[in-house]
């Protein structure tokens, strides 16, 4: 079906279009400059915002830890129930929604591409099964390779090229999209009941340091020409004073960037920007991080904005989750994923009255407002760790309006309000910047060429929001924008209208992106690896890789590697 989207205010930062009134033409699932067929549907978007479909760089929507979270939280399901309709399936869950509900809710907000950021390679099949059951949105997933035995061994022996070939094979075997590092080295150490102190503390038995792992995988990433950079959850995450570790992590790959191209992504940076010595002497390190990012082009980060609500924290960072359980006394799951990684889940409630939580709320926004280049700071809540993805519109409200921030600030912990830097920041995001932080910037950082823009040839993933930027002032009437961004007037996926007035009207299957590296030398899985599989893994080697037929709609991204 061809579409003509007429008279909308278009925000397309990749093509430099800032709220111009123009028409968008769609045919064959792509954006075109001329319609071939005479029959087309007209969408009257006058007085509405037209943006590319939203892109989320980091959101835990599928996989074994999400599923364990669902099992752990029946009370989370009880309070949020979706009834089935004629075309959509029923579902439950506020912070850990079921797969179908996840797809529908993203589409209702105008999001069309979502990245699932942590997948233990052993759980790849499970993760892909859930992703295939997540309707409408396109997705991809990052395998956890920062504590992968073979990577640690290659890096210990300084075999970068062999490591690169191995990582390429792992991406192929798990149908992954990028290299994810979670507390590099720390998770392996957690297997021995320990953690790493900083990026120069060697991992027990393997004798490599987190610095070597980060640098090694950054080099591997470069050799393989992967579309995204390495995706790093820093060491010491969630500990007061960890902003120094974050700065060291960013500094340690400074020399590996070429030109303006970023080479490291620090994810949910809010959790890695804590200053102070303990929870009483706890401050924001956002200023220092923002200063560094402003002067160094090799870093991109995402916010991990805290929302004051009852949510579920889940990461592969077992030691951090253990600390969180000790801190809250809440029920918990902690798991050692065989030889590969660890994981943990703890329900968590962010409270306005708490000094620490209030400061955390400030840190996320300070990062977003102090980093000048919106192309390198992205809007996330690290769903569901700092809040469910359904609160993105609320975060947009805080970004576009100082008044919205002040309103929330006035309800915060008094001491936090007095010590935080946030009240003194005047900056308000323009809608152009919002479009960068929620779609264009993320698509660019992910190397998704067809996403995040409305130029000719791009995927026809479009979100239309019913709010008139010429009549309604974002900084004073922000609630109109929050409302509009939470219920897209139209969401168009591959040229099909999937959401109309905030209701799903058509369900289709999204694509699963994965990276197919073509290398010069053939990679052969060594006999040693197969032997170790028999000895240490519960899964036979032949059952381990995810075949392409396993994906409902496979979308390989071809890259040419240097090795």
């Amino acid at each position, binding site marked *: 079906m061809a579409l003509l989207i007429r008279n909308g205010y278009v925000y397309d930062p990749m093509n430099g279009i800032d709220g111009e009134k123009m028409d968008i033409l769609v045919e064959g699932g792509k954006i075109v400059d001329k319609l071939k067929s005479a029959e087309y549907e007209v969408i009257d978007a006058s007085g509405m915002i037209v943006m590319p479909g939203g892109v989320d760089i980091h959101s835990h929507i599928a996989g074994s830890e999400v599923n364990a979270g669902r099992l*752990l*939280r*029946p*009370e*989370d399901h*009880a309070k949020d129930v979706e009834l089935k309709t004629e075309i959509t399936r029923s579902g439950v869950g506020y912070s850990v929604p079921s797969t179908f509900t996840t797809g529908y809710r993203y589409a209702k907000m105008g999001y069309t591409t979502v990245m699932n950021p942590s997948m233990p390679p052993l759980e790849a099949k499970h993760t892909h099964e859930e992703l295939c059951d997540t309707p409408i949105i396109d997705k991809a997933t990052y395998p956890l390779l920062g504590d992968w035995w073979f990577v640690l061994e290659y890096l210990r022996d300084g075999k970068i090229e062999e490591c690169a070939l191995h990582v390429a094979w792992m991406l192929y075997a798990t149908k992954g999209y990028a290299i994810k590092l979670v507390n590099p080295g720390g998770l392996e150490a957690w297997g021995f009941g320990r953690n790493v102190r900083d990026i120069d503390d060697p991992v027990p038995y393997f004798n490599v340091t987190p610095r070597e792992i980060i640098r090694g995988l950054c080099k591997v990433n470069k050799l393989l020409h992967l579309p995204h950079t390495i995706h790093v959850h820093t060491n010491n995450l969630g500990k007061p004073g960890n902003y120094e570790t974050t700065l060291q992590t960013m500094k340690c790959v400074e020399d590996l960037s070429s030109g303006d191209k970023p080479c490291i992504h620090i994810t949910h940076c809010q959790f890695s920007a804590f200053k102070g010595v303990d929870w009483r002497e706890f401050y924001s390190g956002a200023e220092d991080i923002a200063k560094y990012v402003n002067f160094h082009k090799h870093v991109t980060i995402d916010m991990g904005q805290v929302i004051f609500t009852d949510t579920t924290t889940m990461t592969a960072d077992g030691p951090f989750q253990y600390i969180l359980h000790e801190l809250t*006394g*809440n*029920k918990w799951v902690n798991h050692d994923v065989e030889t590969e990684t660890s994981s943990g889940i703890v329900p968590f409630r962010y409270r306005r009255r708490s000094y620490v939580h209030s400061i955390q709320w400030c840190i996320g926004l300070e990062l977003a407002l102090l980093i000048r280049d919106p192309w390198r700071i992205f809007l996330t809540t690290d769903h569901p760790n700092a809040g469910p993805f359904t609160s993105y519109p609320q975060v947009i409200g805080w970004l576009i309006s100082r008044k919205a921030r002040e309103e929330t600030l006035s309800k915060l912990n008094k001491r936090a309000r007095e010590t935080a830097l946030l009240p003194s920041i005047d900056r308000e995001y323009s809608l152009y910047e919002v479009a960068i932080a929620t779609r264009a910037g993320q698509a660019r950082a992910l190397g998704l060429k067809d996403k995040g823009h409305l130029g000719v040839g791009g995927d026809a993933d479009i979100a239309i929001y019913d709010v008139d930027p010429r009549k309604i002032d974002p900084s004073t009437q922000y609630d109109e924008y929050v409302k509009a961004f939470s219920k897209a007037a139209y969401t168009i996926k591959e040229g099909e209208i999937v959401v109309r007035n905030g209701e799903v009207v058509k369900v289709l299957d999204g694509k699963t992106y994965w990276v197919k590296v073509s290398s010069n030398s053939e990679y052969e899985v060594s006999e040693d690896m197969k032997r170790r599989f028999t000895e240490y893994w519960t899964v036979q080697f032949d059952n381990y890789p995810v075949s392409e037929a396993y994906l409902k709609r496979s979308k390989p991204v071809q890259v040419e590697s240097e090795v």
Partner: protein
Amino acid sequence: MGILISPKRLFDVPVHARCITPDTFSTLSLSEILNLEVHEGNRKRKLKELFEVSTGPYTSPEGFTIWMKGDFSKVRYIGYGMSTGKIVLEGVAGMHLGEEMKGGFIQVYGDAGSWVGSMMQGGRIEVFGDVGDYTGAAYRGSGRGMRGGEIIVHGNALNETGCYMRGGLIKVYGSVGQFTGMHMHGGTIMVGGETEGRDGAEMTKGKIVILGRVPSLLPTFKIEAIKPRVKVGEERVEGPFYMFTGDLAENGEGKLYVSKNNNPHLKEFEKYLSPVKVK
């Protein structure tokens, strides 16, 4: 004015009737009430299809009154989230009676099912018969049980009474099952009869008073004193009582009072009491 309800037949499958509350009924006319939606199993029904409903001159000091007569043992969520008025039930109430209740009064002349007053925040529930498990407890998986109000049971209760309780008062004049006041964070539970043991497991705060016999205590409770009487709500209950604190496995500061006269087998604990200093 008030409403009289009785079931038209015996139900085979659970009926979810969250709408039976004085809050909902008091704002609607009789014809609107008749057309309220309830679920029988997975089928949607109208209230009038399952129940006889009529108006009548029922009044009480609490305000709007719903008079229920008959076997409601399969009807769940009666008085869900109510904040005012009164429900009088002559017969048997089903599960989740008065769940998330905020105010008002529910009186049951008969038995009630499990989850009576779970997660309630205020108001009063009085049951003259027996109740099931999880009285005043939290929803499965949640850590936020009853936070306020009063539940009075004149008969017996089953297991995990006051699980995850955070405030308010539960009085059971009969006996209770195992794990009374499990995971308790606050509030008071009084048991008139005996218990089946494991009382106060993993409690961190709050007070449990047991007037009858307990088979044994968890090893993670420590004897502190012998008290002549103890306060339960506004009332003073005469003892003497052994006073224990626990659950030490959770670094808890909960207080467990157990009648001394009815538990002669606990006498051995007295030797752990710190000796009275004599000058």
